[in-house]
C-alpha cells in the first residue's frame, strides 16, 4: 500500500550516510562507512544484522557516558553465540551511584575497560555493513552518534531496526503504559525472562524478539526495507 514510499526512505538514508561518510576522518569511522549501506531490497532471509544494546549512566546523549556495548550477530533463523561481543568502556568521570545500581557495573569492573576511542575502534568494524537492531533504537542511535561526534567530530549514520516500533507497526493494539517494554513484549511471544540491564543479554533479548516478530508476521518475502525504522 505504501510500498512506493520505500525508495524515498532508502534514498534519504543513503544521502545522510554518504554525507557523513564524506566528513569522516581517516580511521575506524571512515572504514565503517566504506563497508557501505545494505540495500533495502535485500531479502530478510540470509540477512546478517547486529543487535546492539548500550548501557549508559544517564539518558542525555551529550552528557551521559556509555559504559558497555553488547552486540549480537543476528540472522532471522539463528543467533550464533560466537557472534556475541561485550565491550566495556571507561567513562571519564566516576560512575553515578544510581547507574551502578541499575547496571551492576562498578568502577572496579571498569578498571580493565577501555576509553571511548578505543571502544569505538573495536565496535565500529563489528557494525560495518550491517543493519543494527535495538529495542527503542533512538537511544542507541543517539548515543552512538554523540560518541562519534565526540571522538571523530562527525555523525554516525546506520540503518536501524527498532523492535519496539516494529511491534507497533506490525501488531498495533491498545497497550498498558509499559506494554512496549522489552520484557513485556518477549513474554507475549513466550520468550523466556532474561536478566535485564546487561548489555549483552539485552542485545540477545532484542535479537530473539526480532526473530519472534518475523516468525509471527509470517510473510516469507520480507526485505530489509520492511524492517528498517521509519
Amino acid at each position: 500500500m505504501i510500498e512506493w514510499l520505500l525508495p524515498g526512505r532508502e534514498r534519504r538514508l543513503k544521502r545522510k550516510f554518504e554525507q557523513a561518510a564524506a566528513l569522516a576522518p581517516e580511521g575506524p569511522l571512515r572504514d565503517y562507512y566504506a563497508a557501505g549501506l545494505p540495500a533495502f531490497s535485500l531479502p530478510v532471509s540470509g540477512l546478517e544484522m547486529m543487535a546492539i544494546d548500550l548501557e549508559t549512566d544517564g539518558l542525555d546523549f551529550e552528557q551521559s557516558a556509555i559504559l558497555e556495548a553488547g552486540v549480537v550477530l543476528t540472522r532471522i533463523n539463528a543467533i550464533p553465540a560466537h557472534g556475541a561481543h561485550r565491550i566495556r568502556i571507561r567513562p571519564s568521570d566516576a560512575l553515578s551511584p544510581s547507574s551502578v545500581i541499575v547496571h551492576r557495573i562498578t568502577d572496579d569492573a571498569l578498571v580493565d575497560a577501555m576509553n571511548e576511542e578505543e571502544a569505538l575502534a573495536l565496535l565500529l568494524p563489528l557494525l560495518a555493513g550491517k543493519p543494527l537492531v535495538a529495542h527503542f533504537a533512538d537511544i542507541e542511535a543517539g548515543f552512538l552518534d554523540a560518541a562519534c561526534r565526540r571522538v571523530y567530530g562527525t555523525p554516525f549514520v546506520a540503518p536501524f531496526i527498532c523492535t519496539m516500533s516494529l511491534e507497533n507497526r506490525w501488531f498495533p493494539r491498545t497497550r498498558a503504559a509499559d506494554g512496549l517494554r522489552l520484557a513485556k513484549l518477549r513474554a507475549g511471544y513466550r520468550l523466556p525472562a532474561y536478566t535485564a540491564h546487561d548489555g549483552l543479554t539485552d542485545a540477545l533479548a532484542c535479537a530473539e524478539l526480532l526473530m519472534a516478530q518475523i516468525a509471527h508476521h509470517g510473510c516469507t518475502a520480507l526485505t530489509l526495507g520492511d524492517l528498517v525504522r521509519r
Partner: protein
Amino acid sequence: MTSDSELGEIHAFLAAHPPFSRLSAQALGSLVRHTEVSYYRRGSTVTTAGDDNRFLSVVRSGAVELKLGGTDLNARLGEGESFGYPSLIRGGPAQNEVIALEDTLLYRVEKQAFLDQRRADSDFRAFFDTDEAGRLRRALEGSRRMAAGDASEALGAHGPIGSLNRRREVVTAPPAMPIAEAAKLMAEHDVSTLPIADGDMLVGIVTDKDLRRRVLAPGIDTALPLSEIMTEHPITAVEDTPVLTALVMMAERHIHHLPVTDTSGALVSVISSNDILARLGSNSLLIAKEISSASSDIEVARACSLLPGAVTGLVSAGVDADHVSRYVSTIGESAHRRILRLAEEELGPPPVPYALVCFGSLARAEQALGSDQDNGFIFPEGHQKAGRLPYFEQMAKRLTDGLDGAGYRYCPGEIMATNRLYRQSVPQWEMRFFQWIGQPDPDAILQSTIFFDMRCLAGDHSLVDELRRDVFAAASVNKIFLSFVARAAATTRVPLGFFRNFLLQDDAKEGQVLDLKTQAIAPIVDIARLHALANATPATNTLERLRAAGDAGSLDADAARDLAAAFEFVRDVRLRHQAQQVEAGEAPTNKLPPASLSRFDREHLRDAFKMIRDQLDKARSKYAGGVT
C-alpha cells in the same frame, strides 16, 4: 575483545539442566560458544524426518513434539529437555519429525561440539545414550546409591551411632596388661572386642580373632603385654556419625566392631555390625517374630501394622525393590499362615486335607504395600463337596476377616476362599482353568490371568503343584489361548513418557495420574507369565520367569535382562513413592501424580515404558502373529 563476551543466559540455563549441570565451567563455556538460538512459531517444523540434523537442541522455552517418521507420536518435550542426539550419534538422518507445539525458543549445540564433549566425558555420553536398557541399569545403581545417601540425613532408623543401645559400660584395658589377663577380662565381660586405652585415649584394639591368630596359633607367650598384639590406631567413628555411614565404614574394611568416640576423641563405646543391623531391620525382624507368636488375629494385625514403617526403613536404607518385595511377601505369607493356624486351633483339625492357595502378587512374592487378598482352598480329588462343609466355610470367613483386619483388604473381585467357586477339589479347579484355556474370550482372559500365578501358603503343597502342572501343560500347547493372553497383555496402555506434569499416551492424551501397577508393573508380569505358560515353566516369580524364558530361548537374553531391569526400576519407584506416602501419614497406593516424580525418575521411567512397549509388541507378534 574482553573474555566476558559469553552469553550468560545460555550458560546459566544449561548449567541448571542435566547433563550440562555436571560439566565444568570450561567445558560448558566451550559448548555455549558453539550454540545458536532459534525461535519457532507454534505449529512450525523444526526438523523433518529424513533430513540432515546438525544440532543437539535444548528447549529453552515452549515445547516440541517428536513424531517417529512423521507419524507416530514419540515424545513431547518441555523446557530443559533435549532432542536430536540420536541422529548426531548415529551419523544418519533425523528419524523424528519435530514440530513446535507452542512458540518455542531453542538453544542448539552444534554437532561437532556435542560429539567432542561426548567423546571427552563418559557421564555426558551416558546421559545421551541411545540404549534405553543400559541407561536404565545405570539408573538402578544410581538410585540405590541415592537412597542410601539420603538416608544418612533421615531420622529414626538412620540416626547417629551414638543413639544405638549400649548394653553396658565399655570394658577397656591398658596396653601394658598381659595377654592372659586381657583374655580373662574379655571372657568375664563376655565381649569379643577389647579397646586398649591409655588413660582416656584409644591406642589400639584386640579382638577374639586376634587372640586366635596372633597368640594361640603362633604360640606367643601370654605374659606379654597387649601392646605386642593389638591393632594400633584402629578406625574409629565419632558419636554423631550416621548409622549407615558407620555400616559402610565397617563393610568397606571388613571389620565387625567399631570404637565410638566423643568429639574430644575419648572412647565412648564399641558398636558391632549386629547392633547396626538390628537397628536397621529392627522392625523387619520383629514383625515376623511377632506374627509367628501371635495368639489372636488382633496380635497379627498389630504386628502387620508395623509393616509400612519397616518398608520405609528398608527403602531409605537403599535396599533394592526385589528384596523389599520379597520381605513384604514373607510377612504376608506369615500372616496368612498364622491366621489360618489360629482358626484351625479354634475349629479343630480339618475334616479333609486341603491347601491354602494364594494368587497374584503374593504368589509371585512381589507384594508391595496396600495389596488386597486373593486366595482359595484346594481339596484332593474325590472331595468335590468338601467346599460346602461348614468347617471350610467358617475357616474361609475366619481367614479373610483376619486378613482384612491385618491390612490385606477383601478382594473386590471376590477372589477369596469365602467364595464357593474358590473352595474346590483339584479336578474342579482344573475344569475351571481348562475352560479359560479351551474357550478363551478376551474378557475372561483379563479376569483370569492372576489365577495363573498361584502358590501354596499352607496345607498340602502337592495339591497346588498338581494343579499348576496340569494347567500349565494344557496352556503351553494351546496356541489360541496363548494368542489371547498375548493380545490381552498388548492392550495395556503403557504411557509414552511425560510432558510437563502430565503423563503422555500415544494418542496424545495427557493424563494426570500414573498408575505404576497397571501401566508399568502389570505388563512386565504379563510378558513373564505368557512365556511361563508357553514353556510350562513352574516358576511363579516374575524375575525367575524372565530368567527361565531367557534360558529357554523363548525370550532373547537381552530382552529378558532388559525387562528385569525395567521391572526392578518401576518397582523401585513404586516403593519409594509408597515410603513417602507412609511417612506423610497417607495410605500407600500405586498411583502417583507425574509432578511428584524427579526428573531422574521421569527420564528412566520413559526408558522403561519404551522397553515394555517394545516387548509387548514382540510378545504379540510372537504369540498372536502380530494381528490384533
